[in-house]
């Protein structure tokens, strides 16, 4: 593969903006902002080209670049990137969320913009890298690189407890990823390669096989790292800290993309590489997922801080994603992947909204608000759509994902129907906490003086929200288009996991 594929281009585009930011000292703040925004929009545009060039009839990787990177002894670490139906939407999600986060930062970030925007671009680079890397080692490198900008974003631009949150975030994630590193090295040693497709091929052909306990250990090595990132109950403790302390753009990226790295990891690595263990562990993981769904929703309802409420709601939403993935059938996994995107869009949107509220009132306590619909009709109207999307109103994006996941989990060969029943409870509970939030903040009488004169949306804020609205409706009404891209890849994956024909509904 001599030519540089489009995927590599998309990956490298953020760096095009990153280097001038780092090395050219004479840029004004305004230039920095617009440069970053332009770069991120160009990146998004390039990733749209990915979509155009993508052949959805093909299951395997596309637009592959495969270069040897480091060759040490028998180990060859490759720069091996490409997209398939599983990763393409996540790449798009990353490039989609980024301009919004940047646009929002225009008004909210005044301190050290050069560093800030450079970190954002570095972040984007690493996030795209995580989703396109097909070499375990390369993946690990990108995975770790994402930590660094986020650490600084929280640590420098966060709120009061930022240092604590940043360190906790870092240590927590690091602890998991070290386990993953061990597992990667082990696996690479056994397989003689780090390239994921090669390893999967070896495992599928029986060339490489592990005894039960080894496979489980390897599975857990990956799973714990991913579970922390997701985060799955009960490893979620870093999440509220990180979310609440992070600056808005940080929260948006964190919720919008970073958490997906965990769930994506499960789909990309755990399922095809350890099919036996995946089937064995599926019920246990599903139990945690369902607990997460209900627990997250319940705890959200008990919050006083809007941002924390949204943070906990992520636990609930990602519980759905995990449930879908470990239904181990096509509907579940595809629903899971779409739900990752949905969650990125709607929760990202929610964090933007919270950020806008915070900008205006410098508090995130729900009790400080009330009735602001009357003061800010446009803002509240848009908020309503995003809130509804988050709680899964049919016709908006959240529902499609959740429903498909539930279809998958209800028909799963490894999960009992009770998982679905309890997970569906999450739909009620989502309405409970989301409407509680919406009611206390937006509805009711406008009885606090300081809320009366809140300005409505600024044009930058509006432009950060409009793409979200578009996507909310686009996915909500035309989910078929989105599923089309992943169908072949996922059904191949399901075959790999189940080793049998894809289960279809009925009969």
């Amino acid at each position, binding site marked *: 593969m001599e030519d540089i594929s489009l995927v590599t281009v998309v990956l490298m585009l953020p760096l095009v903006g990153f280097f001038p930011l780092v090395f050219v000292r004479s840029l004004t703040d305004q230039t920095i902002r617009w440069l970053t925004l332009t770069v991120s929009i160009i990146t998004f545009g390039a990733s749209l080209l990915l979509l155009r060039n993508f052949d959805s009839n093909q299951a395997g990787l596309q637009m592959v670049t495969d270069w040897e990177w480091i060759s040490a002894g028998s180990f060859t670490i490759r720069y091996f990137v490409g997209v398939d139906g599983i990763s393409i939407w996540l790449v798009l999600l990353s490039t989609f969320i980024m301009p919004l986060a940047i646009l929002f930062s225009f008004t909210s970030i005044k*301190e050290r913009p050069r560093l800030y925007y450079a970190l954002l671009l570095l972040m984007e680079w690493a996030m795209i890298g995580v989703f396109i890397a097909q070499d375990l080692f390369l993946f690990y490198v990108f995975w770790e690189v994402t930590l660094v900008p986020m650490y600084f974003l929280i640590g420098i631009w*966060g709120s009061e407890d930022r240092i604590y949150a940043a360190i906790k975030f870092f240590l927590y994630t690091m602890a998991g990823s070290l386990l993953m590193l061990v597992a990667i090295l082990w696996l690479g040693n056994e397989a003689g390669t780090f390239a994921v497709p090669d390893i999967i091929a070896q495992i599928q052909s029986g060339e490489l096989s592990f005894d039960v306990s080894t496979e489980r250990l390897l599975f857990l090595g990956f799973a714990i790292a991913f579970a922390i990132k997701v985060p799955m109950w009960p490893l979620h403790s870093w999440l509220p800290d990180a979310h609440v302390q992070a600056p808005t753009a940080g929260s948006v990226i964190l919720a919008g993309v970073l958490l997906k790295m965990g769930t994506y990891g499960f789909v990309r690595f755990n399922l095809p590489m350890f099919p036996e263990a995946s089937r064995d562990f599926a019920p246990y993981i599903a139990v945690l997922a369902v607990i997460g769904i209900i627990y997250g929703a319940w705890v959200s309802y008990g919050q006083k801080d809007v941002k924390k409420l949204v943070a906990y709601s992520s636990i609930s939403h990602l519980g759905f994603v995990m449930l879908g993935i470990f239904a181990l059938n096509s509907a579940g996994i595809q629903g899971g992947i779409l739900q990752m995107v949905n969650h990125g869009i709607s929760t990202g949107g929610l964090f933007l909204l919270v950020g806008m509220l915070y900008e205006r009132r410098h508090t995130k306590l729900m009790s400080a608000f009330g009735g602001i619909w009357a003061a800010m009709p446009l803002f509240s109207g848009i908020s309503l759509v995003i809130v509804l999307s988050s709680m899964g109103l049919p016709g908006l994006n959240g529902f499609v994902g959740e429903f498909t996941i539930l279809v998958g989990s209800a028909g799963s060969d490894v999960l009992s129907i009770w998982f679905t029943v309890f997970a569906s409870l999450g739909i009620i509970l989502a309405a409970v906490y989301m409407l509680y939030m919406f009611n206390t903040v937006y509805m009711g009488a406008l009885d606090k003086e300081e809320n009366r004169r809140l300005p409505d949306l600024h044009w930058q804020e509006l432009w950060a929200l409009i793409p979200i609205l578009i996507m909310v409706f686009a996915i909500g009404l035309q989910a078929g288009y989105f599923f089309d891209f992943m169908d072949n890849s996922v059904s191949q994956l399901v075959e790999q996991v189940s080793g049998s024909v894809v289960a279809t509904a009925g009969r």
Partner: protein
Amino acid sequence: MELTLFFIVAAVAVAAAALMLISENAVHSALFLIVNFACIAFLFLMLHAPFLALVQITVYTGAIMVLFLFVIMLLGAERVQPEQTPRFSWMTPVAVILALAFLAVASTAIIQGDIELTTPRVADPQVRVANALSGAADGIDVYLNDERIAQDLDYRESTTFDAWDAGQYTIALYAAGADPEADEPLYQQPIELTTDDVLTLAAAGTMQEPLVVVAAEDMGPIDDEDGLRFVAINALPDRAAIDVARLTRGGERRVLIEGLSYGEASEAVDLQTGSHTIAVYPAGDSNTRLAEYEDVELDDQTAALWVFGYERRPDNSWRSEIVTFSAAMYPAFGGPHHVGELLFSRYLLPFEMVALVLLVAMIGAIVLTHEAREKRQRLVRRLANVPSPTVEQQAPGEAGK
């Protein structure tokens, strides 16, 4: 003579160094140092390092010391202000004692140490194969133990030198294309390779009586510009010991080698370049001329190997023939050629690194001495986010009531 010269130069060097040390004026110190450097350059010459001597003069005395002088003059720093209160008066005795101790230890070690004046070890044994065996149709194969070192080697051809580990080997000669597993060798003999050996394995004789002669060659440089060096091998089929002589134009007979017995190689013999007439006599018999070879042309600075033997003519008759193999000598030790060769082979990487260091140093020097512009305003870093005013908290459910 050389020793005397050394002592004189050494004395000058030490004196210059000492004077440099005690001169109050930095300019004088610098000048003394130049003298010292010149002495060292001279010593380099004596140590067969002409190239280094040259560099020493150009780089050190020529460039570096000029730089020193320049800086001294520029700064007007010939002298430092004498101290009102010497801060380190204790330093002088301590330093002197330390120096003496150092010198004592070092010189003891040097005198008592194991600096041996043995023949220098150059390298692993070097081996090549030369074919002076007339009559083998497709040439020969030669094996050292089981490894083939020559394949299909034609008459009058030779391989290049290859390095081998020192040790015991068996040398075996086969007709070209023979299978060493199955076929009997035409000839075989044990051979010991030791370090620094430069050996030519010359196949000679006839097909009926083939043999391999091991000739030790001396590839070291020859002082004489026009000189060359040769080794002779006696492979004449009458098996008698021979004398080898050079016939001058005047017909005088200058014996080069005496009593070279059959199947032996001679010592290396130095010879002037030119066209020679070589004659072979039975040992001790200067009247019977066994063979005469006219106009043997030899280049300077080569090591030649002469094999005296018979060559089979196309009509199957035999004729006495001298077969010559020549190889380039090693370049003169320490000469520019020698240093250059090493530099561009084994030391290429360090050379490049050093070059890089030099470059960086140059840039560094420029940056350091560059007039600093006015200092950049340092930004005062403020805290990022202003803490929010805390608002009284309210329990869920109550807010809605």
